[in-house]
């Protein structure tokens, strides 16, 4: 082993490397553990949890698009109680930071979920999903309303001392305004980006391919947009950023770090190659050696404009 330092910090959360598995693309860890040594990863983020179990949307939930995919899973999840009882014991076996992602339909539900989970020591941080197309308040999506995001951040902050990450919506004009209120209300970091709203229709039936009509676009198609959002936040707000969107290889990880990410999450790629995250960690190490980067975290926001 070399003495390359791949570790990164996200506020008070220290990760052995910047590679996290994104919410909704790793389940609760079981399946992916058959392909990959979870202990090698920076962190894993759970599927969005809600207070009660959610059945999710009827089929069809996904469709492929050019260099991307749309999904409208509808936040199918086991709910906080079953998660604590049935999923945590499995995850406890591993020495990988667990980040709990929470999705809810009201500020109260966000708060209650967090409160119920925060004493579980296996959980190392929270990621609040304010950007899922299924979460509405007053007809507006939470994630597109800067006051709602400020409010959720403040209220959740009040009930946990663990690192608090807010996962931002890209479907806004200026994402940095949202990062700013997160910082102001005591959030520790932001994740950017969640999926972009998209749709796809069957031209013969004239019906949407996805039951929910709209889905969230992920995959390499969105990488340029995600990079621009991370760069925008990085230039305007002093807050750690977790970069997400279309990462397919180690070069993409480096690119996200250069534009401002402290760490990254891998999503759609897990479906295509669940062994990729572990390989990417190795490749990042090789890159550091070849490029004389002693501390990978030095890359963060190292862009030259």
């Amino acid at each position, binding site marked *: 082993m070399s003495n390359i330092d791949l570790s990164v910090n996200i506020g008070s959360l220290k990760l052995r490397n910047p590679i996290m598995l994104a919410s*909704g*693309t*790793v*389940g609760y860890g*079981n*399946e*992916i553990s*058959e*392909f990959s040594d979870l202990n090698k990863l920076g962190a894993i983020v759970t*599927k969005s949890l809600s207070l009660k*179990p959610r*059945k*999710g*949307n*009827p*089929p*069809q*939930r*996904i*469709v*492929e698009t*050019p*260099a*991307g*995919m749309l*999904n409208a*899973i509808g936040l*199918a999840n086991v709910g906080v109680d079953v998660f604590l009882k049935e999923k945590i014991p499995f995850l406890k076996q591993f020495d990988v930071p667990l980040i709990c992602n929470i999705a809810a339909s009201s500020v109260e539900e966000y708060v209650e979920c967090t409160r119920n989970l925060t004493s579980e020591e296996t959980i190392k941080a929270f990621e609040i999903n304010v950007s899922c197309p299924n979460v509405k308040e007053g007809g507006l999506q939470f994630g597109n309303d800067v006051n709602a995001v400020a409010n959720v951040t403040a209220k959740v902050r009040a009930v946990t001392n663990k690192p608090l990450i807010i996962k931002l919506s890209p479907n806004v004009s200026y994402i940095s305004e949202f990062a700013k209120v997160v910082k102001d209300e005591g959030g520790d970091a932001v994740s950017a980006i969640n999926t972009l709203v998209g749709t796809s229709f069957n031209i013969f039936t004239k019906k949407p391919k996805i039951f929910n009509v709209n889905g969230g676009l992920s*995959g*390499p198609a969105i990488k340029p947009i995600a990079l621009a959002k991370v760069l925008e936040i990085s230039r305007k707000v002093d807050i750690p950023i977790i970069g997400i969107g279309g990462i*397919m290889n180690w070069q993409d990880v480096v690119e996200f770090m250069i534009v401002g990410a402290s760490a990254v999450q891998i999503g*759609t790629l*897990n*479906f*295509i*190659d*669940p*062994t990729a995250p572990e390989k990417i960690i190795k490749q990042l190490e090789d890159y550091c050696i070849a490029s004389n980067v002693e501390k990978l975290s030095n890359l963060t926001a190292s862009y030259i404009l």
Partner: protein
Amino acid sequence: MFIVNSPVVETLQVHENIFIQKIHSPEIASIIKPGQFLNVRVSVNSFPLLRRPFSICDVNGENIFLMFNILGEGTKILAKKQKGDLIDILGPLGNGFNLEGEYKNAIIVAGGLGSAPFPLVTRIIKNSKNILSLVGGRSTQDIITYGMQNVQVSTDDGSQGFNGNVVQLLEKHLANIDNKTTKVFACGPNAMLRALKDFCIKNNLDCEVSTESAMACGFGICQGCPIESTTNDDKYLLVCKDGPVFNVKDVVI
């Protein structure tokens, strides 16, 4: 369940638009069960982005066989693979057919490409069970009987065999079916499976169907492949993990 890079041995065009691909994959061949499937990455770049699911069609020694038709870009690329080209396979996936049990007579019902899993099924049960294979399609060019035994054919347009759908053909056999000693195994389009389900439930026939769904991962992490359960209203089953084979009683098709 693992990922292997296996070389193509040959790609045969067995029908106008039907290909059988023989792949040397001892790892998969040694553990696969009939009715399971593989999730195949047809290109190393991101076009197409997602893997493509294919039933395991047959196994012979260290070789496995896929059967497919060209539908879109993925299958087009796959059909071009030649001897020695490597194919990135994730599998085996899903549960497969339960071929064990006391039944004496197996009725196989296949619609179109639904024939794909049955060469292996046939190979495994042909010495212990009586097999009747009913193969349906819209027209004669949809009829695929590769690797099947004791085949009867139905076509919607009457261009080959019985004029009608394959469930109507099954109905014609009803008088001769003893539901205590018979089990039905089926694969095909949803409309066919739905009609078959009604028929089997009405006639108290034990029946397993292999279902299809859009899929991203194929192994349970994306939640992209729900199918409604008849027993649990709070939760969908997953085609990729809980299926693709279900007892018709357990799912809403």
